[in-house]
């Protein structure tokens, strides 16, 4: 009888101890992870898979487009006369198209990646992306690259052309009206040493991003970078070209 009544007590004790241990483990684990939250791997995997699929789909469409373009080019080359006037016009068109950003280009340059700070215990973050809210840092970075002589720039595959905006629209940062999210990969073609030097100068833009905002920034010089063309539809509804400009003063 005495023995029998002891067992439920041991049972209850084991239960309580087990619960305490599990609660302890859970809370201390969450504590260590700072502002991070647990998410099922399956969900992340599914998203990664979805993104890969969309990108594969896009590559297929891009390939189709490039093929069509090639066919058009062949027809042009076959039928356009090779007199000097037409040939020089075609050369000029290529120059304009290159400057307008509607051709894929390659050359030496730098690749910069910018990502949000890793949430820590002291600074768990508020669930918002630092770099998205401070998108003006991206603008400033791009401006510095241009100042250092960058000839072509892209952010997450979006080519920066004359009318490219970087704007916060709702929760998204839109570039060329296409929503983008961190991590940001900025590619720039130009003199790699100049580009890198202009960014990493003491108290410069990169130091500011790292020290004042805790952003993760890395810069890599590259021998050859490929920058994609502007993917959107270029259209001028308001602006009309006019020749000869001599009568306008500097303002």
């Amino acid at each position: 009888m005495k023995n029998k009544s002891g067992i439920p007590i041991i049972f209850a004790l084991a239960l309580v101890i087990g619960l305490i241990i599990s609660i302890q483990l859970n809370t201390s684990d969450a504590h260590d992870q700072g502002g991070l939250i647990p998410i099922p791997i399956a969900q992340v995997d599914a998203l990664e898979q979805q993104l890969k699929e969309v990108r594969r789909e896009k590559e297929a469409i891009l390939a189709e487009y490039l093929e069509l373009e090639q066919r058009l080019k062949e027809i042009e080359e076959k039928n356009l006369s090779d007199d000097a006037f037409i040939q020089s016009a075609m050369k000029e068109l290529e120059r304009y198209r290159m400057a307008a950003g509607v051709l894929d280009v390659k050359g030496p340059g730098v690749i910069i990646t910018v990502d949000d700070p890793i949430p820590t215990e002291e600074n768990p973050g508020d669930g918002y992306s630092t770099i998205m809210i401070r998108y003006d840092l991206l603008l400033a970075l791009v401006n510095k690259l241009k100042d250092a002589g960058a000839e072509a720039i892209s952010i997450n595959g979006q080519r920066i052309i004359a009318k490219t905006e970087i704007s916060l629209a709702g929760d998204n940062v839109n570039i060329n009206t296409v929503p983008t999210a961190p991590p940001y990969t900025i590619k720039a073609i130009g003199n790699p040493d100049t580009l890198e030097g202009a960014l990493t100068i003491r108290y410069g833009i990169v130091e500011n991003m790292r020290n004042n905002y805790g952003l993760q920034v890395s810069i890599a010089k590259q021998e050859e970078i490929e920058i994609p063309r502007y993917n959107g539809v270029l259209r001028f509804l308001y602006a009309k070209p006019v020749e000869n400009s001599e009568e306008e003063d500097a303002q």
Partner: protein
Amino acid sequence: MRNGLKIVLIFILCAFIGSSVIVLSKTVKGLHVFVSSKVIEDYGITIEGERKDMENLVKQIEEAKAQLEELKTLEAENEDISQELEAKLFQDLEFYKLAAGFVDAVGPGVEVIVDDGTRDIEFGEDPNDILVHDMDLFLIINELKAAGAEVISVNGQRIVDTSAISCSGYTVRINGQFYARPFIIRAIGDGSRMAASLIGPGGYGNYLKDWGLVFKVSIRDDIRIPAYTEDRTPKYMTIATDDRTVKEGENN
């Protein structure tokens, strides 16, 4: 009887502890990763962005297909398509000359005047508070672009894809040329939309005015923006050939 009950209880106890260990290990490690709460959101945005990119591509494919079709029918009818192609060549030439900024542009739009503030600074206040900076200028330009500006100039300098605006002491360098205050920004596009984005609620113009800077916007229908005049022969970039290989794992 007593032994039997004991065994049953111990069995239950063991089962409970065992299952709790499994539950614990599942929730703590196994199937979860610890990520920042916005990672899921970022994935969603990136996927949405890629979709949007695809839509743009599909539009261009349709355009190219229509063109190809047209040329083919002409060819089938044994017409001389070189005339057609030449016309297209010169049409393209004019269009991309405008897009690249090699020709003056006219159209309706807005004129924005930004100048240093005229108010006296308060005791101990930084004079920078009432001065125009490069940041102000390119935020205004960015705002204009977001509102659909097609062509933009600052103090007569056409803003092209490589235009930088940098403060250098008392002057601002635009396209490598030096300018001082006041700054006159002209933009061709939907005038009322651009003006509203600057002086509407939360607009950057209001923000500058609050600091005491001079900021004026006027909607005009005769904006003229000169061509880009600096040398822009590329030294580093060359055209990437069309046989672009698709690299697995390369995002952009």
